[in-house]
């Protein structure tokens, strides 16, 4: 199992989903479990130069963008200032989640705006 850590935005997304959208929370939880057991399979490596090293996994309407710490460190183009503030604390097999995107976000906002 690969340890998974979350940046602030995905942390808030999970808290919001757990309160308001239990079904989507379940799906995101399963997807995170999948990443934790194997972050390399079934994921798309973003090849674009600005997004180099990021991986994206999707299932139905959920999308998660993450990096495996070991892969990020091997990318010698990254200057020290671009590393995570707690980079030195984690081993290479740590998975860092940067974004959790659920299509429901838009529907949730629309639904609540109508009322």
């Amino acid at each position: 199992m690969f340890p998974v850590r979350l940046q602030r935005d995905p942390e808030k997304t999970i808290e919001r989903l757990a309160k308001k959208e239990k079904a989507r929370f379940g799906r995101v939880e399963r997807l995170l479990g999948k990443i934790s057991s194997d972050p390399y399979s079934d994921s798309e490596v973003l090849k674009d130069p600005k997004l180099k090293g990021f991986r994206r996994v999707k299932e139905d309407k959920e999308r998660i963008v993450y990096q495996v710490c070991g892969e990020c460190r091997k990318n010698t183009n990254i200057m020290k200032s671009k590393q995570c503030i707690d980079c030195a604390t984690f081993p290479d097999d740590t998975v860092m989640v940067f974004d959790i995107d659920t299509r429901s976000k838009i529907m949730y906002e629309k639904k609540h705006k109508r009322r």
Partner: protein
Amino acid sequence: MRVRTRGRTPEERLVDKLLVLYTISDAGSVGDTVLQKLTFLSANEMRKQGDKGFNYAYIKLDYGPYSSDLVNDVKELERASVITPFSHDVGLNGKYILDHFSHIFEENKVFTEKIQRINKKYVDIPRDELVHLVHEMQNPVRTWEKIGDTRDRSYILKRPKSWNEDKEFKISESDFASLEIYLNPKNLHALSNSIHSARTSPSVSLCEVLKRVSS
């Protein structure tokens, strides 16, 4: 009873945004009305030959063919700095996409060549004249009447329902994954904020968060 038509898939939305970006980069700075007409004319050309490029549906309004999906896409492209607001020229991220994903347009020449032909023919025509020209064209759906004579709010061009697989705009999964971030302002801002906050705030373990939300 009002019948709901199916919405565009995420893949279709992305292809539409890419083709709008290409249209603007080829035509130069264009306003909203001209952009609506140019994309309509390109989409019509593609549909005639069974090519699945643009996925917009157009209805007829005062200024001719109109797609609300195109309006929403343009707003998202502006927010993502892919195109500039008002004058609709290529923005900073748009230039980046055109440079680094040019292979996508090369591989889909069938579509880009049609857009180039339409732009070459119509882009220099003044707006009101272009609207009049389009009004005089045959309605692709109600072929016995002109677009200008069509009842307001009725369909002029519908979304393609069936097509050959080899006549579809093709993007690889990895390109799609990157472009989904660049072409969607919400995704782009979310990822940029996250990368920025990674440099200033420590991360949290997933186990801790799950324990907290389940208690």
